[in-house]
């Protein structure tokens, strides 16, 4: 550098330490998601309604579980909430970030692609903590008496987030923003209805054998294993790992930054 002046704009370039960048990115993305009404509906309100409706309805139509309905449905709704955030919200947000040039803008900032990805995962985990708190609160109010394996819960959340985030990014990186919005919501509804996420695979009869291989069924079962029987659902975690690897490979091949 030959500049001798020390004006306002005299160059002094440098990247912030990576952890600070990731934290800033995670905080920003979480804030923007929570500021968005639809996202909040998807993250907290719909799962809470499903939980209350599910527990009341199960009593009426007499679904036969090995445990009280609230003990089975609350873990399922936690899984649903994870799915809505890691898949639907992430896909929609990322789709519009591509559309608005946010990813392009960040592409010339010091934030690396790894940093961006870490920031997104951080934002998801922040929101998931909030979701778990709210939904557990509603569950406990409805008389939920969980039998907790904390390691199992954390692993289910982490592996479920990885699987659904990888799939959500694959979707957002290849379709236009509007198409991503439509597809992400459609897939969410289909998995909510038939994906064995809220209700155990055993409630689906023969279809349950298929549903347990879906990421939704695997995440739902992993949460139920950890919160009703206090065990780690290793088989389910393996299924989620498979989906995460497949989604990540697809994302790496197809993701367009613009």
């Amino acid at each position, binding site marked *: 550098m030959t*500049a001798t002046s020390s004006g306002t*704009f005299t160059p002094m*370039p440098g990247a*912030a330490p990576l952890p600070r*960048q990731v934290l800033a990115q995670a905080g920003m993305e979480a804030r923007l998601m929570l500021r968005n009404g639809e996202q909040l509906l998807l993250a907290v309100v719909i799962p809470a309604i499903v939980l209350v409706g599910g527990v009341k309805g199960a009593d009426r139509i007499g679904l036969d579980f090995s445990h009280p309905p609230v003990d089975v449905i609350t873990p399922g709704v936690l899984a649903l909430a994870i799915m809505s955030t890691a898949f639907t919200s992430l896909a929609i947000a990322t789709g519009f970030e591509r559309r608005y040039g946010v990813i392009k*803008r960040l592409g010339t900032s010091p934030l690396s692609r790894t940093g961006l990805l870490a920031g997104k995962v951080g934002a998801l985990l922040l929101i998931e903590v909030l979701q778990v708190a709210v939904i557990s609160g509603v569950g406990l109010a409805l008389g939920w008496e969980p039998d907790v394996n904390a390691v199992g819960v954390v692993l289910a959340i982490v592996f479920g987030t990885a699987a659904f985030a990888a799939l959500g990014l694959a979707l957002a990186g290849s379709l236009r923003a509007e198409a991503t919005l439509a597809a992400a919501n459609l897939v969410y509804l289909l998995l909510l209805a038939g994906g064995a996420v809220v209700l155990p695979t055993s409630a689906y009869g023969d279809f349950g054998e298929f549903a347990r291989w879906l990421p939704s069924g695997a995440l739902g079962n992993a949460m139920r294993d950890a919160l009703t029987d206090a065990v780690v659902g290793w088989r389910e975690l393996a299924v989620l790992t498979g989906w995460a690897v497949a989604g990540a490979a697809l994302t790496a091949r197809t993701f367009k930054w613009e």
Partner: protein
Amino acid sequence: MPVTPAVSVDGLVMRYGDKVAVDRLSLTVEQHTITAVLGPNGAGKTTTLETCEGYRRPHEGTVRVLGLDPVRQRKELNPRIGVMLQGGGAWSGVRAMEMLRHLAKLHAHPLDVDMLAERVGLGDCGRTPYRRLSGGQQQRLGLALALVGRPEVVFVDEPTAGMDPQVRRTTWELLEELRADGVTVVLTTHYMDEAERLADQIHIIDHGRLVASGTPLELIRGGTVTTIRLVVTRPFPPGAPDSLRAALGTETVVAQLDDVSLLVTGPADASTLAKVSRWCEEQGVLPESLALGQRNLEDVFLELTGRELTP
């Protein structure tokens, strides 16, 4: 010790399908200058800039910014450059100052964001969500985002498009202050006055090719060349430009501007003027005015490319 150029582009070729957008382009940007890449829409300015910014990989040729490969060495290079995009680049719901603060956090020694917002004229819209900012306000935020990390080189793509004249002048002063403080500014523009006022060096691009480089003065003067604008009372007979050119000699260029006016570019000395009047007499046309003038960049561009820069 030779100073590394801020940007060096060597034999760059960029294609979109069959269409060649940039055609063996070579140019250099020296450090601590304002350098303008001038050309009409679709000339390949943005494509060239985006290759420097690491958004595109050169199809042929090489691009270096501060001696670094913008794609392979982006981790090293990115903190040292600032980029102002032509539009967009922010979440629709993010507030202007929030976006600026966010970019600041990604850098080690960012500028004071309140001072910067004040300088670019964002003062009163700091809490406005991005989607509600006017086009000009979005431009100003874009400029602030490019500067906040205290870069060595800033790339600004059409920086004043959509700005009102007052803000435009403030922006020019800001870019001049950047140069004074030791920042290299690379800007694309299709405004002549912007390039003429700001740039130390101008590269004129057309159809993806470099057609001329130089300081504004070099380009305008081009040696002793000046212009004679000849306006007559009645339309010229057909073939008038060729006939005048034959009368004046091969050093001149004659362009027909409309039915009654011709632009002669060449050595506008007494002998040329005498020849022009004699030619008028021979052709039986009566000059209404005969104006001598310096070329401006607009004329230079017209000569080099055969078309107007701004439609």
